[in-house]
């Protein structure tokens, strides 16, 4: 799958740019909100000639004038063949999109400043393949798909996340220039998908000290008084140093050694305890602590104003914490 650099306008410069917003509003009013799976209907496919298409039409016009000028039958006939092919190209481009189904949309969140992923599953229920289906959002790069007859494919759209919080993907654009690149047909699917941008893990402050917790949770770290507690399965974020390589060599899979201290510890990260005027940098500090604590395999909890996440560990917990950080202060959807 190749992400091509997004060429924003196919037709003419500023006029298209100026018409873009009103057109988007009009389309939204016209089509309304979509539900998945969304099948592209005949009446919501828009089509315009590309620059190549306009040039091609101009070429056909010049040929027609030359043919008529010289009463040259063969040149005239070639012109009509060209014009006919251009009209057929228009139909082919249009039909390449009609009947296409957007089956599913999944999202992968990421830190602000990185790219989140919008994963579109596109399905072709027709009995002929569809080539060169391009998927994009208003912000993402364009990804081209080739769909075999009756097949489906997934497009991973990399959406740049510029600032912390929720990024609404207003609409998804499916387009195609198949077959000759003379026309571009496109359609919009309005679906309320959103990507989360976690605060960037940034900040030099020391994390709060570990507090004793009631539970007897196994820890990966051996302090002086800890005892061998056995093996458990490898989780994301575990350090390779703690892997029981001997067990791995015996074919028992990836396991990590755990140790148990008489009283398991955890850290509580509280927004209120992080000093500083700027909310974003405080959230970034919390994010940095969460990431670090997870990497060390510690147990940690998070308190954001009224919301508290109980201490825990593992990838899911990390993601829940980052999610809470991302959404802190955002309006509920």
């Amino acid at each position: 799958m190749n992400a091509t650099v997004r060429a924003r306008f196919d037709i003419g410069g500023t006029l298209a740019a100026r018409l873009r917003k009103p057109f988007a509003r009009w389309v939204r009013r016209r089509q309304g909100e979509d539900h998945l799976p969304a099948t592209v209907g005949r009446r919501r496919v828009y089509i315009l000639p590309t620059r190549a298409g306009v040039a091609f039409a101009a070429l056909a016009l010049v040929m027609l004038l030359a043919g008529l000028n010289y009463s040259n039958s063969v040149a005239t006939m070639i012109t009509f063949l060209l014009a006919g092919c251009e009209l057929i190209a228009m139909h082919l481009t249009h039909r390449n999109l009609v009947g296409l189904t957007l089956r599913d949309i999944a999202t992968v969140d990421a830190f602000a400043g990185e790219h989140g992923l919008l994963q579109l599953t596109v399905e072709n229920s027709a009995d002929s393949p569809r080539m060169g289906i391009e998927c994009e959002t208003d912000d993402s790069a364009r990804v081209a798909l080739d769909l075999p007859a009756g097949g489906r494919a997934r497009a991973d759209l990399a959406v740049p996340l510029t600032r912390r919080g929720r990024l609404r993907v207003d609409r998804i654009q499916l387009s195609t220039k198949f077959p000759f690149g003379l026309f571009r047909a496109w359609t919009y699917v309005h679906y309320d998908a959103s990507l989360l941008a976690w605060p960037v893990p940034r900040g030099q402050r020391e994390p709060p000290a570990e507090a004793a917790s009631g539970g007897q949770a196994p820890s990966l770290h051996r302090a002086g008084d800890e005892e061998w507690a056995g093996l458990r399965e490898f989780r994301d974020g575990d350090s390779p140093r703690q892997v029981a390589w001997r067990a791995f060599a015996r074919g028992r899979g990836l396991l990590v050694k755990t140790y148990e201290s008489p009283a398991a510890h955890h850290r509580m990260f509280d927004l209120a305890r992080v000093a500083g005027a700027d909310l974003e940098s405080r959230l970034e500090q919390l994010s940095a602590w969460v990431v670090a604590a997870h990497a060390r395999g510690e147990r940690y909890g998070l308190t954001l104003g009224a919301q508290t996440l109980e201490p825990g560990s593992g990838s899911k917990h990390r993601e829940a914490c980052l999610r809470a950080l991302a959404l802190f202060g955002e309006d509920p959807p």
Partner: protein
Amino acid sequence: MIPNAARSHVAATLVFLGGLLLVCADAPLWCVGIAAGAAAWRLGIASRRLAEPKPRRGRRFLFGVITAIFVAAVLMSFRTLNGLAAGTALLVLMGALKLLEARTPRDDGIVVGVGLFLLLAAALANQSLWRLPLYLLQLWGAFAAMALIAHANGTFTTRAALRLSARALAMAIPLAALAFVFFPRFGGQFWALERGGLATTGLGDEMSPGSIGTLAVEYDPAFRVQFEGAPPPREALYFRGPVLNSFDGFTWRRERGYFYPREELEPIGPPVRYRITLEPTGRPFLVTLDTVFEPPRRGVYFGHDRQVTAMNDITQPMSYEAVSYLRTRSPQRLSTLGRRYETRLTNDRNPRARALALEMRARAGNDTEYARAVLEWFQRQGLEYTLDPGATSIDSVDTTLFDSKRGFCAHFASAYAMMMRAAGVPARVVTGYLGGELNPMGGYLLVRQSEAHAWTEVWLDGQGWTRIDPTTVVAPERLQRGIFEVFGDSMPASSFVLQRSAWFNKIALAWDGANQWWQQRVVEFNLRSQFELLSKLGFDSPDWRHLGWIFAAALLSWLAWVTLTLRRSVARGKPDRIGRAWLRVTRKLARVAPARAGTEGPYAFAARVAAARPELAGPVQEIALRYARLRFGPPPAREDIETFEREARAFG
């Protein structure tokens, strides 16, 4: 470089090469060489045999300089940038330049565009039937290349591109045919490009001994004639071309500036109506059968000698309809001016022939008897009709009649007319064509350059201008047979073989018939033909608006056809066997329970049915489970599907 980008470059380059091939006969050799070199270089890079040069600063400037040099070179070799040949040369060079810098899909697209423009140039220069497949091939390749350029990435194959392109072309052909017939042809010149480079052929406005003989070995068609009704007998097929009226002792010329009133004529016998399609000759002369009373078309000059001359050289095939009379009579006397013009002779040439003429005229009672006596003398003299009469002298008539005694039609016509004039009898030499070959396929007479002939017309009081062909007394067989049959042995081997092989001749005639159809029905199709067609379709006074309406209707029907054809081929996949069996189950259940919604899954449906009809819960949930397993589980075996189908049929 991604291999697929290389594929785009190769496709675009091949289209350019195709266009180059089509115009290579019309473009100067050095242009073709440069373009072919650029294409080879690009192909070398695409196949990784050569390295792509690194982009350097100043590249644009360099290309600008090269462009200027190319333009200057074209300007120097053509003396103009206007004109088809100069334009083609420029296009070839610019395409070559674009090939050198082709990197992006846009560059490739421009190269394909140049290929299409070269196709246009080729079509403007040559509309022959045999080139039509080449033009179609070029279109096919161009569209395939455009598809490849548009889909450089992904799974799109070259084969798919070719198939797609062929399909689009095939679907466009009906539109092209309809548009060809009905799109209003506003002919005429919006602007004029100079055409050049067409060599002249056929009969000219002067005739020296031997000049017809060089035409006699040419197998090319000169013109074709379609007669209305039965064609006249072969010996009457004298097609008049340039009439020559001035003799310097060696060469007969058509001199301008000699006019006298055209004599009155009375036709004897019925008229012959026919249509002639003339091949381009690069000369202005039209050909007509024997005597015409009216010029066959407007915009031509109809001389006092009934010679029809176009205003310009004929560079495109030309057709016209004419009415001729094979026998005519003129009750008048020739005007004094006419008599003076048609008896002019330089006095110091051909002394022996002159002396003989004066002596024979003195013995004869009148002009008619004299003309017959000279003809008889030609017959007695033992002259030999040959394509190779040997060297002649400045007194060419004396040489022919008294020394070599060999000659071709031009020699005899020249000698006869000279002897008439020497005795004060008005005479002129007529060049043209005698005979022809009836094409059984097309029902027309094909006249080749080899049928070129020369004869004389002599003014005889009471009859008017009378055709006397001295060749017929020397070689009577020429009247009945074509030149190839008369001179089979002395013809060049190639044309001889062509003529003698029966099956080849058959194929050649069929091909010529196809060409004739193409020329008349396609190449010469114009606004007038469109109006004729409309009259046949029942329009009373057709004008271009009718054409416009018909064209619009044809375009709309074609669009509807295309829409239907293309819509059908994206029909949604039909439900497969499992789906059909499941549909049967749900339809059966629809009689006893609420129908299944379109998007409802099997479990939800079964639960709903079970809620509505608890007594059916067991079997419905059972079959829903089986369906879900087949549909969403691992790919089922054929037996499992068949079992499920049986169960579905038995269900209920």
